[in-house]
């Protein structure tokens, strides 16, 4: 049994669920895994794993080999056992047809937004280019939405593997692929560092299948065989001991190099959380007022909103807001993140405020009425201030929760603290130091909040 890990969410032609039998997978990576397994005299068994976790999972021993469009790069070879490259791809630039003359290369895209899949070679190229020419890199968690956002006008270009670009062009269209590749890259199979013997066996099998034309037939069957690929294969077969692919720019390895990026991401998290909380408080107050003071129709509408928002995942809400509504209103990612989190938390805040408003003794409100205070004055001078004191502790809890939930917005391309940490952890090949730094920053935000809330509660206890 050869357990191999891949991500069926990556889809054809790499790995996809077989339309005829969705419990099985198909794709060229599936066939190559099969070739390696058979060469070893074992049966292949597929293990589903998130693409960005393939390397960490293979090192943990979740499976023997990972292959699902895994890109060759120097850090990968430093940390894991890596096969010979079995396919050469090209990073290509996709732009809207109207821009095809304007944006021919990355250098033409200074100051423009260019999307790609996070934690890939293409993302590295974009961040390097960003430092040089001012390209604004936008990171996605999948390879479908960058093209959708390109067509929708949220991005000005997408840089990704030619296989992915061609696939998106066939599926949805609406853009053109520039003929000159930005860079070349290679797909490899990745093994645990200690598994170099297995890697060597796999290499021998791959080389044999390249020589006997099996790999070529597989790639032809998946329509990814080209003249350039034929030349690349010829080169590999004629050079028996080829090991490393052409190295791209080396990633910075010291933690210090990542600090400015992490601090910036921490500020994004803080700003995002504060704005979302401000929205949640405002909208939550309106909802609570609607339920406590509104007529039956208003109160019912507010209750329905609260139940819908609390009863569905915030991830779904973010997706709908950013992608689902993009044909109606094209929100910038950060605005969508503030709106999504704010409107979600508004439902929870409104329940806190409603409970707090109802907790103020009825006799006090009646006493205020007999003293001649108007309804507005009663709210402003009697009910509101007391409700606020009651709501403060749960509100603080919610704000801390919001700080942490803000990490969810990476699914709509906002790079905040957790996402940035994940990107760096992938680069340096370890979660220990980036994870600790990230945790410290979150604690630095949340602990003072808890203290302030505790202080205010003590101060107001007599009241």
């Amino acid at each position: 049994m050869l357990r191999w890990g891949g991500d069926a969410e990556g889809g054809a032609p790499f790995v996809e669920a077989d339309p005829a039998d969705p419990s099985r997978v198909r794709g060229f990576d599936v066939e190559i895994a099969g070739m390696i397994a058979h060469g070893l005299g074992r049966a292949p068994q597929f293990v589903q794993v998130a693409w960005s976790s393939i390397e960490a999972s293979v090192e943990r021993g979740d499976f023997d080999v990972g292959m699902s469009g895994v890109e060759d790069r120097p850090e990968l070879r430093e940390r894991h056992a890596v096969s010979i490259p079995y396919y050469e791809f090209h990073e290509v630039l996709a732009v809207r047809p109207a821009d095809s003359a304007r944006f021919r290369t990355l250098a033409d895209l200074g100051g423009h937004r260019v999307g790609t899949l996070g934690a890939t070679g293409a993302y590295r190229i974009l961040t390097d280019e960003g430092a040089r020419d001012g390209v604004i890199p936008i990171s996605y968690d999948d390879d479908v939405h960058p093209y959708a956002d390109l067509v929708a006008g949220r991005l000005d270009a997408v840089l990704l593997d030619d296989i992915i670009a061609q696939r998106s062009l066939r599926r949805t269209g609406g853009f053109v692929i520039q003929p000159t590749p930005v860079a070349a890259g290679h797909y490899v199979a990745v093994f645990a560092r200690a598994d170099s013997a297995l890697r060597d066996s796999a290499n021998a099998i791959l080389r044999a299948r390249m020589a006997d034309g099996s790999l070529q037939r597989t790639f032809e069957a998946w329509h990814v065989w080209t003249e350039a690929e034929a030349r690349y294969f010829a080169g590999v077969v004629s050079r028996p001991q080829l090991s490393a692919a052409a190295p791209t720019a080396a990633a910075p390895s010291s933690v210090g190099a990542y600090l400015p990026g992490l601090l910036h991401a921490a500020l994004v998290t803080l700003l995002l959380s504060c704005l979302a909380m401000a929205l949640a408080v405002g909208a939550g107050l309106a909802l609570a007022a609607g339920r406590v003071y509104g007529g039956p129709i208003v109160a019912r509408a507010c209750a329905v909103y609260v139940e819908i928002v609390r009863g569905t995942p915030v991830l779904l809400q973010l997706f709908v807001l950013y992608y689902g509504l993009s044909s109606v209103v094209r929100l910038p990612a950060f605005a969508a993140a503030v709106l999504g989190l704010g409107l979600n938390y508004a439902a929870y805040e409104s329940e806190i405020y409603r409970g707090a408003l109802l907790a103020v003794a009825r006799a006090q409100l009646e006493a205020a009425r007999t003293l001649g205070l108007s309804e507005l004055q009663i709210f402003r001078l009697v009910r509101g201030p007391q409700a606020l004191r009651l709501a403060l502790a749960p509100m603080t809890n919610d704000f801390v929760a919001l700080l942490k939930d803000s990490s969810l917005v990476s699914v709509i391309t906002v790079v905040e603290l957790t996402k940035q940490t994940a990107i760096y952890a992938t680069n340096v090949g370890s979660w220990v130091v980036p994870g600790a730094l990230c945790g410290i920053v979150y604690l630095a935000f949340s602990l003072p909040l808890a203290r302030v809330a505790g202080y205010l509660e003590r101060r107001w206890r007599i009241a």
Partner: protein
Amino acid sequence: MANRVTQPTLVVRDLCVRRGKREVLRGVSFDVEPGTILALMGTSGAGKSTILRTVAALEPFEAGSIVVGGVARATGPTPPESQLRELRARVGMVFQSHALFDHLTALDNVTLAPIHVHRWSVDRANERARALLESLGVGERAGAHPRQLSGGEAQRVAIARVLVLDPLVLLMDEPTSALDPARRGALASTLRRLAGDGRALVVATHDVDFARAAADRVAVLSEGRIVEEGRATEVLASPSEAATRQLLRGDASPT
């Protein structure tokens, strides 16, 4: 009639209040002259609190009339507060639970309405409030929050909160429920002093000793009607009704 020089401050005629299908008040009529204290007595559910709450315009009434210092309120739903301003200025109510605003000090409880409703200056409101708290014996508690006050102290702050607006009618719901016997005597003399200033007081109570000590007149309620009314000394000394005798035997439970 010839020696009668004052009009009643509070005139209630044929007051009917319905809650759903239940008739809570079934034609209640009484007058309260300036400077007198009327004790509304009766068992739980007899309608004492409903009378106070209806006179204070916290609840609507279906039929009858309520006139306070010449200002009448119509039957039907409680009108918006903007139409109740005159009435609010004439009627003060002290709740059984005192209903002090928990987030404000005793002093701020008293000055809230003068400053925000009647647009007094803060200095004037504070000065008047301090004088009132002083006269009620809680001057040194002005800076305390309601939860730091004893039941008796909270009650006197609640009285000050109402008196600061100088109402013609003062309504009190079960004022002795949170007081020890010594305090009840002190409260009775305080209320006598307030009546002495020309105010009309209506006190809902089931406390016979207190009514005897404080009230000029007693009205005994039973099932939404006044079954006996007269001078306190006479009604409580020689009751003519079963409901009154039941009260005097101490069968009543607090409302």
